[in-house]
Structure formats: C-alpha cells, structure tokens
C-alpha cells in the first residue's frame, strides 16, 4: 500500500467533508432552534451564491458584495418569519416542514427570476489547482482555505449555542413554544436570529461551493449530501455536523479509491447513504445528537 497516496486521499476527503459540513450547519441551526428540517436550505445556498456572484459582476468590490448579500439574507429571514412562520406558530412540525418544501421551490424560482439561470464563474483569486506538497502527497490549497473558513464558523457557532443567553433561548424555543413564551422568550425575534444565521451560513457555503463548481442551479442539490452528514452527526449538534461531514467526505473518497475497484466504481455517490443507514441502525440520534428519551 502506498501510504503517501492514502494520506492524499484521506486529507482530500477530510477537506471535501468540511464543505459538506458547511451546508449541514445551516440545517442544524434551524433544526436546533425550531425542530424543523429546513428543506429550503439548499435553495438558500443557491440564492446567496447567485446574489453574491451577480453583485460581483456588477463591479461591486468583494467585501461590499459580501456585506450586501448578508443584509439581503437577513431581509429574507425576516420575510420568512413574517410570511411563513408566524401564521404557523404552534402547528405540528410536519406542517412547518411542508412549508419549507414550498419555500424551497419559491426561493429557487425567485433566485433565477431575479438573477438568472446561467452558470456563473466565481473567482475568489485562489487557484483551484494550486497544492501544498507534504512529502509525496499533494494537498489542494483551495480546500485548505475552505476548511479554515468552515472551522472558524463552527467555533463561533458552538460558542454561541453553548455560552450565550440567546443560545439557551434558541434551545428553549426548539423544545416548547408555549413554555418559551411563558418565560419571556420572544419567538419571533429568535426565529429571525436563527434564519438570518442560517442565511449567512448559506452564503459562506454558497461562496465556497460556487467557486468550486461555478454558481449554478446544481448548487441547491449539494444540500442532498447534507442529509447523510446530519444523520451521522446528529441533527441537533454543531460539532456533529462537522464530524459527520468529515466522516462522509473521508468515507466516500476512501471507499471510492479502495473499494470502488471491486464493485465497478462510482460508489462515491451512494456510499454516504449506506453509512447513514448503518448509523441509523446502531445509534438513531446520530453520534452527537441529543438522545430522545420518552417515558412510557
């Protein structure tokens, strides 16, 4: 066995896993704070990336474009709270979930209506093929930067949930709306916080994915990859989203390289779902998920 090659595949897998984690993070945020699986997260990634790239094309400098897109994502969050969530307070979670499916199509459509449906090149000034050399292994520079961004984001979000008053309020809202109101937690404000944060995470994911794949409609489907990540890591855990992403990224690359040959290749696409299925059988709440306890 060629260990340098193994290292290269392994690290490559970890780094691409970080990209999955980025998308999964958006899901976790909203799930933690409202118990809702936000089907529209992928569409939000697409919308954020499209907005950003079109602003760049208009000649707006990068930092300003990021700022403006963030503001737009916050406005989107406020609109979602006002138009979709507020009328559905205290409804069953499945109803909120259905609402996010509708939201998904709406945002996808709107993104392409407002901007357009062409493929846009997003150039952040980092050469995609530039690589570090470690011994005989090549590590993609771009992936390393993406990983650093994701790592920073995760650190901030973990601290936020763990140590802040709002973090605790978020978890309270996720558990019981009525009780949260009774201790003076304003549902609406909390929802705007969460959806804004999820929107900003979507922007980061959109920029990273967009510069790798080009900003195009297909970006909204990277959200699908987030599902096995979430099942493995646990829907309610920020670190879980990261670990899940790493496991998925690493697992699919290693499986492709070392097992793919025996079964005819292209197992990269379904391998994560297999892993997710395994986790579901052994530990249904995911590695870091909150254990669901039901008294009978």
């Amino acid at each position: 066995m060629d260990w340098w090659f193994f290292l290269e595949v392994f690290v490559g897998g970890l780094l691409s896993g970080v990209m999955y984690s980025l998308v999964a993070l958006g899901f976790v945020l909203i799930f933690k704070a409202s118990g809702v699986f936000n089907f529209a997260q992928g569409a939000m990634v697409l919308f954020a990336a499209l907005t950003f790239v079109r602003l760049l094309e208009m000649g707006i400098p990068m930092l300003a474009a990021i700022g403006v897109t963030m503001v737009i994502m916050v406005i989107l969050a406020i609109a979602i709270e006002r138009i979709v969530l507020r009328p559905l307070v205290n409804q069953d979670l499945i109803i909120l979930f259905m609402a996010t499916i509708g939201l998904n199509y709406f945002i996808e459509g709107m993104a392409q209506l407002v901007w357009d449906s062409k493929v846009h090149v997003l150039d952040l000034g980092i050469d995609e093929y530039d690589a570090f050399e470690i011994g005989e292994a090549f590590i993609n520079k771009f992936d390393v930067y993406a990983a650093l961004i994701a790592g920073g984001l995760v650190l901030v979000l973990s601290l936020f949930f763990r140590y802040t008053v709002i973090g605790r309020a978020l978890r309270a809202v996720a558990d019981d709306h009525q009780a949260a109101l009774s201790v003076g937690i304003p549902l609406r404000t909390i929802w705007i916080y969460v959806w804004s944060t999820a929107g900003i995470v979507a922007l980061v994911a959109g920029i990273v994915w967009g510069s790798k794949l080009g900003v195009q409609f297909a970006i909204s489907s990277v959200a699908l990859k987030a599902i096995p990540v979430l099942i493995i890591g646990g829907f309610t855990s920020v670190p879980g989203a990261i670990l899940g992403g790493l496991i998925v990224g690493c697992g699919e690359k290693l499986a492709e390289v070392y097992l793919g040959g025996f079964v005819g290749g292209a197992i990269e696409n379904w391998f994560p779902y297999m892993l997710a299925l395994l986790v579901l059988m052994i530990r249904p709440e995911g590695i870091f998920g909150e254990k669901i306890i039901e008294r009978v």
Partner: protein
Amino acid sequence: MSLKNQNLISKSEVIMNIKNINLSFGGLKALSGVSLQIKKGEILAIIGPNGAGKSSMLNVISGIYVPQEGVVEWKGKRRNKIAPHDIARMGIARTFQNIALFKGMSALENILTGRNILMKRNLFMEMLYMGLGRRQEEEHRKKAEEIIDFLEIQSIRKTPVARLPYGMQKRVELGRALALEPELLLLDEPMAGMNVEEKEDMCRFVLDVNEQFGTTIVLIEHDMGVVMDISDRVVVLDYGIKIADGTPDKVRSEKKVIDAYLGVG
C-alpha cells in the same frame, strides 16, 4: 395556617383588578360579567366544574386572552393587549396544566431559562465566557441553585427532565417559574395527576413560596381538600359566571356552590 391568618391585614392591596369582563370565542361565552380582585400576597384558588371558565380566567389574568369587554388593571394601570413574551417581564409567571418543560435540557438548564429575561446580552463577552458574560452566568447560576435547594431537587439538577417522574417535572416547572422572580404566580392545576405524597410536597412548596417570597399566587385546582387547606380565598366559577368569592369556609357552605358541584339547577 395560623401564620397565614396573621398576614391577612397586609393582604389588602389590590395588584390586579378585573372589572366586569366578557370573553367569548365565536358564539361560545367563556366568561360573562366576571369581576375579580387579586390582592397582594394572597393565595387565591379558582375552582368550578369542568367548562366553568377557569382556564379562560387564568389566561385573562396572564394576558394571553384579552376580553372583548371589561377592564383589566395591573398595579393600578389599565392593561391592554400585550405580546405573550412580555407577560413574564410584567412579573407574571405560570405553570401549565400539561407540563411544558424544555425536554432536551436538564432541570438546572430549565430553571436557568427562567433567568433569561433578567440577563444582559453581550454576545461577544458571553461567547468567550469573560467579564460580564461570566459574572452574570455565575450570578444567575447561584440564584438557580437557591431555587433548586428550595424545591429540594438537588439530586436531579443535571438530569434531563424528560427522564424525571411526573411529580418532579411539576416541581422543575415551578422552579422555572420562580426563577423569573414573579410578583404573581399562576398555577394551572399544580397537583393534577399526583399521588398523595407528591401533593403534600407541592402544597408545602406553594405555601413556602407565598410566605418566604411574598409571591401572590393564583391557582386552579380540582382537589377540594388542597384548595380548602392552602388558599386564603376561593373564587367559584360556573358556566362562565362567578357564583361565589370568599374564604374557604364561607364558600364551602354556600348553597350555589354546592348546587353547582352536585349538578343541581
């Protein structure tokens, strides 16, 4: 009991004055022409047969429902429609008939959420657990521990509440309400579904809260023994109308009340 009677004189200040309210849902009249005064420091029980409007009354007191007619005065000022999350800020806390706890959190964390509105927000300091963030977390933690000691739930403070027995969950819920340091505490059937021992404990806590913190308490309860034992005053509702209001002894002997409970008339 004797202790409570000595305090009666000081319990004359009215903190909530409800005048002649009508509340209906569509064609259904939930409360008609009900007037009620809540006096500072008292334990007031609202009783009545099923569908008498007790829960509606509690929701009017807390501000969740705004009656179509009539006036609700809180500490001498007329109160209009308020947002549900502002009720806690006014100094009114409550527990629910069906326990409404944050199931994913421990008992301690549940009680800490009750401190949320009293905490200052400084995201940056909080996240780094420094300065103000740290000081206030410690301060509120101390208060939460006091409540835990008071309710004698030290041994379960780190247990996720979903794992606790029913009586303990009720106690944690009371703790969360107390953490708000309310002036007025609303208890919606605090003893429902409890066994005798749990009921005795809960009675003791309700009385202790009233005596030690001077908290005004309004409770709905079906267990007549409990009601007669712990309340200073009892209000009886029947079909949305107030049919009696007075000390437990007085109310118990009123013919209207007996009729309502026995289903006469």
